[in-house]
């Protein structure tokens, strides 16, 4: 793509960071008639999501799915030979997918006449940026409005060398330089479980260690248990209530000592260790201290309902603007910031931001969870439908899954939807629409769902609320 190598003197709207938040904001802003400059160190837009996150991990999870389906098809009378995995090809296929998507974004940037600067930007003050391009040019730019979308990065365990080959983060794991014989995943959150599933399918012996008493903290336990039943079979071990005390890299592996809640220490050697304990916002080296922009206690940029920072002409969106750190939340915020920058009365006021864990089975939820309802003492009634009786589930050779509706007992309004099972990530979109439209359970029951599909479980769950 054609990139501007010269730093323009001024910009009407400058967007720093070209991940899902940044590029979405750029596209929307152009639509609103703004003159946009987009700054990012990568060749093409895409950010972590496309380069080192959502997209590559889903490509690899597809590989994992093929492997496990081929293996499980024995049960229904189809036997395949043991799969031969050409790691080189898997990696290049994954990179092709990334290339197609980021290249597509690059040409869209061109087509929309967005000025794309490859480099890094820093505030000189609240109206000027110092920009250093990847080819070494340094310059200054005055801007009318700015959108900060610099994203986040994985948190490393303290005291662990960043450049280690054996101790890796999600970025290193997605590179799949090799398939280690044994892998320890530190952290039972969605990133650890997704990547653990990939390596398990590629025949690593995967162990997971999680500090709290369950996988996927924050997710309802009944959903997690659907997943855990399967992961228990796929993974070598899942150690809960266990804390990693020391990680020592040795010549032929990594020695990890872990302490469980009975204070018993176990030492184990793994070929590789994947650290997936969370992510933190990229707010450093931006010169924020030169502005009156404030950070909250967790290090996120403080924003108002229009995504404006304490400097009203500077917006912040995506991972740096707070949890949940999800690409689709960034999309939503990007549209609000771009519209507000163009003078529209936009506000970020979603009723639900869906969360999806792309393991097998997938887990997805939106709106209120049962856990949260309990914590906040909100009265709810629930309908939980196991997928065992769903035709489509059985014809897929599966029997695991659950659809759950969380309902306001007073108004019958849908407060939350949760799904565990293959394809849950696709199904949850209906839940989000339900939340946004403030539907009541009767609306779900009166909407004809196609047969035989997994989406019928939402219909059937709604039906349960009327059987007494």
């Amino acid at each position: 793509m054609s990139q501007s190598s010269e730093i323009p003197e001024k910009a009407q709207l400058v967007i720093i960071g070209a991940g899902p938040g940044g590029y979405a904001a750029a596209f929307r802003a152009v639509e609103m008639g703004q003159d946009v400059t987009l700054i990012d160190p990568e060749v093409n837009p895409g950010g972590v999501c496309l380069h080192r996150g959502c997209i590559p991990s889903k490509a690899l999870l597809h590989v994992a799915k093929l492997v496990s389906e081929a293996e499980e098809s024995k049960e229904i009378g189809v036997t395949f030979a043991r799969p031969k995995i050409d790691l080189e090809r898997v990696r290049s296929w994954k990179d092709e997918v990334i290339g197609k998507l980021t290249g597509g974004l690059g040409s869209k940037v061109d087509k929309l006449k967005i000025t794309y600067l490859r480099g890094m930007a820093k505030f000189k003050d609240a109206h000027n940026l110092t920009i250093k391009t990847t080819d070494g040019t340094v310059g200054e730019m005055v801007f009318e409005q700015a959108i900060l979308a610099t994203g986040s990065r994985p948190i490393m365990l303290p005291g662990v060398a960043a450049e280690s080959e054996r101790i890796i983060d999600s970025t290193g794991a997605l590179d799949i330089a090799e398939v280690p014989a044994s892998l320890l995943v530190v952290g039972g959150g969605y990133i650890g479980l997704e990547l653990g599933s990939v390596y398990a399918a590629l025949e690593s012996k995967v162990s997971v260690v999680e500090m709290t008493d369950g996988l996927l903290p924050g997710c309802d336990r009944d959903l997690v248990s659907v997943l855990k039943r399967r992961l228990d079979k796929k993974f070598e071990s899942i150690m809960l209530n266990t804390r990693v005390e020391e990680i020592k890299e040795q010549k032929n592996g990594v020695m990890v000592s872990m302490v469980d809640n009975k204070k018993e220490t176990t030492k184990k050697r793994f070929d590789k260790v994947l650290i997936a304990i969370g992510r933190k916002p990229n707010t450093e080296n931006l010169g924020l201290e030169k502005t009156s922009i404030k950070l909250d206690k967790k290090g996120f940029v403080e924003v108002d309902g229009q995504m404006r920072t304490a400097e009203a002409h500077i917006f912040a969106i995506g991972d740096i603007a707070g949890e949940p750190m999800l690409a689709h939340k960034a999309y939503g915020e990007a549209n609000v910031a771009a519209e507000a920058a163009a003078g529209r009365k936009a506000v970020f006021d979603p009723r639900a931001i869906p969360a999806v864990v792309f393991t097998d089975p997938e887990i997805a939820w939106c709106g209120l969870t049962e856990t949260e309802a309990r914590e906040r003492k909100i009265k709810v009634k629930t309908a939980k439908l196991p997928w065992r009786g769903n035709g489509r589930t059985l014809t897929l050779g599966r029997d695991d899954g659950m659809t759950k509706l969380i309902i306001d007992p007073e108004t019958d309004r849908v407060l939350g939807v949760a799904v565990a099972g293959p394809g849950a990530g696709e199904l949850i979109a209906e839940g989000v629409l339900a939340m946004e439209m403030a539907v009541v359970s009767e609306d779900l029951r009166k909407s004809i769902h196609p047969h035989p599909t997994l989406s019928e479980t939402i219909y059937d769950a709604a039906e349960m609320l009327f059987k007494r």
Partner: protein
Amino acid sequence: MKHEIKVPEVSEGVTEGTVVDISVAVGDAVEVDQTLLEFETDKAVIAIPSPQEGKVAEIKVAVGDSVPVGAVIMLLESSASPSDEAPVPEPSAEQEEPVAEEKPSPPAAAAKQPEPVKEAAVPDASPAAANEVDLATVRRGDRVAPAAPSVRRLARDLGVDIYQVQGTGPGGRISEGDVRSFVRVTMQRITGGGSVPAVHGEFPGLHAQRPLPDFSKWGEVSREPLSRIRELTADAMGYAWSTIPMVTQYDQAQVSEIEAFRQEYNRRAISENRLTMTAILVKVCAAALKAFPRFNSSLDLASKELVLKQYIHIGVAVDTPAGLLVPVLRDADRKGIETLALELNEIAEKTRERKIGPDVMEGGTFTISNLGGVGGTSFTPIVYAPQVAILGVSTATLQPEWDGEQFVPRLIMPLSLTYDHRVIDGADGARFLRWICDALDNPLQLVMKG
């Protein structure tokens, strides 16, 4: 180059003023800061100074005119060689247009402009001001307004707080029509246009609030969201206060004997059975309402009728940590004091623990608010619409009474009855309250009459 002189924003809340003096005439040369005209708001007389040197080209107002803030009152010709510039014929439509900011002058003129010219590339943070959005409605954690994104957007565009709109759809869902009818009803109320149809239920929702000043100008403030109870209370009280002409009648009841009986009764009673003065008052009021049925009614102005209820359900105001709630004792006229006391104790306890449903608080025909336990000599309760009367009870005190030969101690309980004067006349109000006082003084009357 013509410069528009506008009515400046003089202080918070002032939206218009009256021109009291015009100090210049068309053709006058004026200097910076020279007074052009004076105008009077309801707070002060303000002199409007000239922002620059120039010649008065046009005066658009006359003394006595009422002009809103932001209106153009004068046109000033820059003294910067006006002949250089071809006179631009200004179509009248353009004059009407609210011009946000003066366009930068051509360089020749700019040099002589005393007004500081902003660097074109560095705007101030004006975009925020350009699209004022009330962010108070965003991310209100607990209960979200049940409306689709398109409906919420409409509400924002119309400047409506979606949380104040009552939805008519299933589960209270707010439709586009609900937002529009909210705006219509609110406008009708403010402008007084036409009769206001009762929208949904008894309370039409928002009561007009004037814009609040920026309190932070005078010191630090914090904000907390209204609880649902507080919101409903504010709505109900605001509605009652602004629509019902109320009168409060004061009286005193002599309760020495009743109180002695109550004390004696409670010595033998277990806690659930404890007899409270409120329970006795519920019974007395129920009997009074039977004797005076108009106090047990509601006014239906739309159909020009008085709705007389054939049942007596008495609400009792209960002070809870979350706010005031009014659970209702059903068919109080058909129950004995013992039953009423038991029911009241139970319902009050449940109310304090927030364990009662909304249905328990509906259908009341009369309300008692007993502040006797807290203290005070008397107070003025507010009628709980659509009821027409409410009884306030204050602390009973021992007072000397002359019985013809000597002073004797008497326990006197102050009562205050507020009633809807559209329904109840003053004499009836006094009679009703006296009836209650007589009944308390001589409880046998209850049996005789009830």
